């Protein structure tokens, strides 16, 4: 299943890639592939901005504005002026996770 097209904030600079393969190991959406000892992006629209790849890229080749793709969290974030985050542990209101 794929979500909206052309919205992801995932950015990749292949010249910084050292070919370690960590991004392939952590991406749960199969966004990356190894070609010629470097990672390549097969389909950016598969990305759900979880942030695992950027967190584990030691060469600064990946960046993404990571966050939760959860309407309830984003609405709460808008209302309280804070960053969207899962409300699961803050009472029984959170529907996510």
């Amino acid at each position: 299943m794929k979500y909206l097209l052309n919205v992801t904030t995932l950015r990749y600079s292949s010249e910084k890639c050292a070919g370690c393969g960590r991004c392939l190991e952590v991406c749960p959406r199969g966004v990356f592939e190894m070609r010629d000892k470097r990672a390549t992006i097969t389909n950016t629209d598969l990305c759900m901005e979880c942030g695992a790849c950027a967190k584990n890229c030691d060469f600064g080749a990946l960046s993404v504005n990571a966050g939760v793709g959860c309407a309830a969290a984003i609405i709460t974030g808008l209302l309280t002026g804070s960053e969207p985050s899962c409300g699961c542990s803050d009472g029984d209101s959170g529907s996510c996770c």
Partner: protein
Amino acid sequence: MQTLKFVKKEVPYYCAGEISTPVGKVFRVSSDWSRADYWGMIKSRVGAFRMNYAVAPGLYAVGEPTKDSDIFVSANYKLSFDILRHELKGLNAWVLVLDTKSINVWCAAGKGTFSTNELISRMAAVKLDIVVTHRRIIVPQLGAVGVNAAEVQKKTGFRVFFGPVQAKDIPSYVKAGYKKTKDMSTIRFPIMDRIILTPMEINPAMKKFPWFAGAVLILFGLQPSGILFKSAWSGGMPFLALGLNSVLAGAFLTPVLLPFVPFRSFAIKGWIIGLLSMSAVAPLFGPAVRGEVLLLVASWLFFPAMSSYMALQFTGSTTFTGMSGVKKELKIGIPLYLSVAGISLVLLMIYKIREWGIL
């Protein structure tokens, strides 16, 4: 002085004995689920019970682990821990449970409790470097959102392997020499998973439903002579039924039918299903809804929009929606929902005014 009383460390019911290690005794957990484990799973799937469904953080043993056995990291949400120990059946392994405030691995990693720091300090607290002689630790792949492997290696000497997304793939992952197939590292969202998650959409919605019901009954019962129970019921009942129908369409039908409903936007998916299911049930209420053009327009505007909003809430349960996409949907959706609600209310008020014969 109660504090002086010495409390013996109680053995949790899911533990089966202890095992000796160079750093002391470690609880051994069973790979089989008891009735209490199954019952806990059901309760944690439907409601607030999940908030405190925890195991104590620390080191546990599965089977007869030695200094060469693998270490699997987990969250202290009991369901996460239960699934892991169940899938480790037949293996000899260590399980290191992090303190994630009883939240599952993925959500905790997103929230920052399943983190690099928590992992490093928990490894130190259980003296992992003495318990085992090798230097590899297997972290669930979805924990990678919160764990920087390089930093863990730098500070502890342990090399982090991000294991499969699903615990059930662990035995084949280990057998393959800690290699994942693409299938093992990809998260899916099959129909059973979608169904399992719907109670967490339906329950919060149903908690708010009495407010909607109250408002509808008062609106229809309100007559120049006071609130009449009879007109409240006869006039309001069809709308209560349509309200329930729209909750079901948005919070149950849309998630279940997700890949089969056209369009990528959850708001549009929910609106379509809301419209279709309303078309299916509306004829049952006959003239009560159809008799009045104002009510007719208001309900066809309002109820599919309500389903659409409910469907949008399901983005929090999916495994493929990103923040930028949901923000985009909300930016367009929220003004639309508010306008639809406003217009419906105005139409209802005009209807009431005409009913009372004021105009």
